[in-house]
């Protein structure tokens, strides 16, 4: 899971040995670099992994530093007692900043966080209890028995320990279920919700993680520099942090930490030309996003190629018939009988347009049901209503007899509904295995408390999930590409992966939106056998398709939509001879020819 390699242990060892070669001033700068690296790790989690723009990280950092300072200087708490409270304050602020995430689009968070950062600066410079523009002095050092913590060399090891602890925790999160869900959300919010992920809570969780890291760093900063002022946590500091993470590589914990250390070092080398520093950060941010979006961390692949190190090559895209799937949900399987999905008089209006009106259909358990109709007839809209992406304007949707009309996408996923999308929505940057593992993972949000209470149990769950994922991939004929990023798969395999992902989460109802679009003849055969196997495993299948050959040979019942209404339904033979259907597809017969 985590490939350690040789460079990283060496880097850590070098960090331990480094103070030997440092003069007092360098050691001081080095401690600052380590502290900023901790803040950057938090920013990397929220921005790089969760894809949420956070411009308040410096404010969270400052909230913790100021809390620690106020508690120790004005309330005379011991630093150790103040530290948890300070971290809590930073985290609480992150929660406040993330709260709008429960309601709004993610790009608003960037603005909310910027607003919070500006407001926080204005509070620091104007309030009396923060010491105004001059800040707070006389913060006591951290007390450790027998160790002089005013000594920069000693503090170096405390900061390094903290960085390694925070970094290890961040890596642990990033490489297990929580991090995977954050990344799934970043890559495709709609698909993540369709895999059962409650997007708003994960946005909030990302902010909490960022706040925790900033909190730890803030406490260290206050007791190291022993003086806090608004400048340290201003917007300029935020931009420096942003530069660290973007230039280092936001989607890697390691690269972000390295970026922080590099930029603090650079800041001290360039201290003579202070006025140009910010210009350089800004220009580097622009250059990085345009030319090397993954930052320095992303350039290692390029370097490796230059050095002639061969990267794993993609297997040829030979489609392979899938092996039988395990009986997915035997208890709810075909033997149970009854209806899997009922759509009753559903309507959907977009402003003035009636996309769906009075659509009624019933899908029996274990059936392969086709939905066809000319382009624009409302097929995908129907799927979006059924899978909770749109709210219907009227009517009812029932899943195995249960009214689910106003359920959200992630709730429906947890009730056993899996779906694919007309224009592929994979988690692009995750590997094939990770894509499937996101779907297999049906733990509720509060299960993430394991990370704090029993981290080891996260690992064992992870191992089991991985084994299940590999098993599913083998049956779907995708196992040899398990470690390839989804975006790098050939098109046909991406389609296959999307089906695997949709089945993965114990779905007993599978909605396929044009699964055959763009497939060649051989891939089409694989698709057919896959769909049959999925059904044989006890899953009910509803598919939208334009390929009539596929629909007629696979489906037991077909519903035809035109202009948002059901114009026919029945067996393939009934439907294909229905006058209304023929007219919808080919147009009405000529007036004159009617007489014949």
């Amino acid at each position, binding site marked *: 899971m985590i490939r350690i390699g040789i460079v990283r242990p060496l880097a850590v060892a070098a960090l331990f040995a480094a103070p030997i070669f440092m003069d007092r001033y360098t050691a001081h700068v080095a401690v600052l670099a380590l502290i900023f690296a901790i803040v950057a790790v938090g920013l990397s989690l929220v921005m790089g992994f969760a*894809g949420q*723009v956070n*411009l308040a990280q410096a404010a969270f950092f400052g909230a913790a530093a100021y809390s620690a300072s106020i508690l120790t200087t004005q309330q005379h708490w011991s630093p150790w007692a103040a530290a948890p409270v300070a971290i809590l304050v930073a985290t609480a602020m992150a929660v406040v900043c993330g*709260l*709008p995430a*429960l*309601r*709004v*689009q993610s*790009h*608003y968070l*960037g*603005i*909310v966080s*910027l*607003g*919070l950062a*500006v*407001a926080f*600066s*204005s*509070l620091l410079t*104007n309030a009396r209890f923060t010491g105004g523009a001059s800040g707070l002095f006389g913060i006591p050092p951290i007390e450790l028995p027998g160790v002089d913590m005013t000594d920069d060399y000693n503090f170096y090891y405390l900061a390094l320990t903290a960085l390694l602890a925070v970094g290890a925790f961040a890596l642990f999160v990033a490489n297990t279920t929580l991090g995977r869900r954050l990344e799934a959300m970043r890559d495709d919010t*709609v698909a993540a919700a369709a895999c059962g992920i409650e997007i708003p809570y994960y946005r909030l969780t990302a902010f909490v993680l960022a706040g925790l890291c900033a909190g730890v760093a803030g406490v260290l900063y206050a007791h190291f520099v022993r003086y806090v002022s608004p400048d340290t946590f201003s*917007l300029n500091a935020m*931009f420096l942090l*942003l*530069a660290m993470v*973007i230039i280092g590589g936001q989607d890697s914990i390691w690269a972000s930490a390295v970026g922080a250390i590099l930029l603090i070092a650079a800041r001290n080398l360039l201290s003579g030309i202070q*006025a*140009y*520093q*910010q*210009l350089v*950060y*800004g*220009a*580097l*941010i*622009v250059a990085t*996003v*345009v030319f090397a*979006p993954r930052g320095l961390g992303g350039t290692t692949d390029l370097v490796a190629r230059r050095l002639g190190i061969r990267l794993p090559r993609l297997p040829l895209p030979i489609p392979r018939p899938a092996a039988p799937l395990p009986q997915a949900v035997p208890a709810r399987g075909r033997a149970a009988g009854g209806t899997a999905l009922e759509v009753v008089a559903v309507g959907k209006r977009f402003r003035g347009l009636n996309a769906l009106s009075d659509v009624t259909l019933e899908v029996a358990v274990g059936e392969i049901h086709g939905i066809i109709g000319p382009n624009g007839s409302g097929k995908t809209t129907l799927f979006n209503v059924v899978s909770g992406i749109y709210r219907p304007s009227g009517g009812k949707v029932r899943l195995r007899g249960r009214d689910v009309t106003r359920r959200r996408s992630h709730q429906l996923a947890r009730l056993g509904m899996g779906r694919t999308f007309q224009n592929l929505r994979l988690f692009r940057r995750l590997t094939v295995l990770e894509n499937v593992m996101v779907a297999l993972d049906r733990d509720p949000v509060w299960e993430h408390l394991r990370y704090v209470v029993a981290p080891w149990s996260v690992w064992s769950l992870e191992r089991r999930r991985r084994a299940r994922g590999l098993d599913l991939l083998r049956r779907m004929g995708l196992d040899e590409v398990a470690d390839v990023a989804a975006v790098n798969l050939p098109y046909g395999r991406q389609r296959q992966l999307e089906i695997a992902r949709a089945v993965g989460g114990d779905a007993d109802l599978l909605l396929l939106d044009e699964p055959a679009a763009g497939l060649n003849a051989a891939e089409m055969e694989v698709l057919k056998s896959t769909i049959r196997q999925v059904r044989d495993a006890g899953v009910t299948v509803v598919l939208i398709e334009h390929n009539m050959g596929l629909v007629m040979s696979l489906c037991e019942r077909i519903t035809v939509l035109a202009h948002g209404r059901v114009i026919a339904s029945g067996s393939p033979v009934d439907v294909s001879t229905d006058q209304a259907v023929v007219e919808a597809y080919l147009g009405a017969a000529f007036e004159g020819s009617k007489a014949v």
Partner: protein
Amino acid sequence: MIWFLQTAVGGLSIGAVYALVALGFSIVYRTMGLVNFAHADVVMIGAYVTVTFFLTARLPFGVALVLAVVLTGALGVGIERVLRPLESRDLNLMLIGTIGFGIVLESVAILVWGSTGTAVPAPIPNVPLHAGGVVVTTYQLLIVAVSAVVMGMLYLFLDRTKVGTAMQAAAMDRVAATAMGVNVGASNALAFGIGSAIAAVAGAMVGPLLYVSPGMGASIGIKGFAAAILGGFGNIPGAIAGGLIFGLIESFSSGQLSAYSDLVTFVVFAAAMVLRPTGIFGERTADRA
């Protein structure tokens, strides 16, 4: 009552400036779904360019304003050009790119004009006019008049010209618009250019009210953002209403709260977003899959 009206007059004049800033955000957002974080600093650059032509080169204010509009508009087009490779790939990265541009613009301003800032005299004789006990200055009237003209021109452009219609088409469906012969890249560049040109007007008009400094962007920008969102992001009438509302909020919360005006702004708009995420008039944006 007179106090109330007097405060409202002050709020509306600064609100007109916020509305202009909000319009600049909105036109880029509705065209490409991008939040342009450099916008606040473009306003600042616009203010400085005007000041330079007006005070240093001693040109008439109107001429300085027109020059600033042209140069700042070109700056906006330039920003879009540099970031264009990210347009169809990753809007989040593009957003970070605009933050990077904001940082660059601010530091350029410090290097060129210094970090202390400049006070700007009003370009017209600032005569107080009395109307029923309420005092309105001629400069306040000028701000409102100029803002109204800009808003009217923007409306006519988007609604009544072929290019404006093409831009709206590109905003609604990139691919379809391309198929109809609309150059989407040019349309985005135009959105950036127009947004920045309006920013220059906002910067030029706000100069004499406030103090022109490299850091002025943050405070005005955040209120412009907040205004754009409050009115419904991407919604042109919404941006105007939002700007006026924030001007009024600021005006009425001044006094003992003036040091915290950024804080008050933040609290109001964070609350507004939680209560009504799509703003008062609803969101209008390029793509929602």
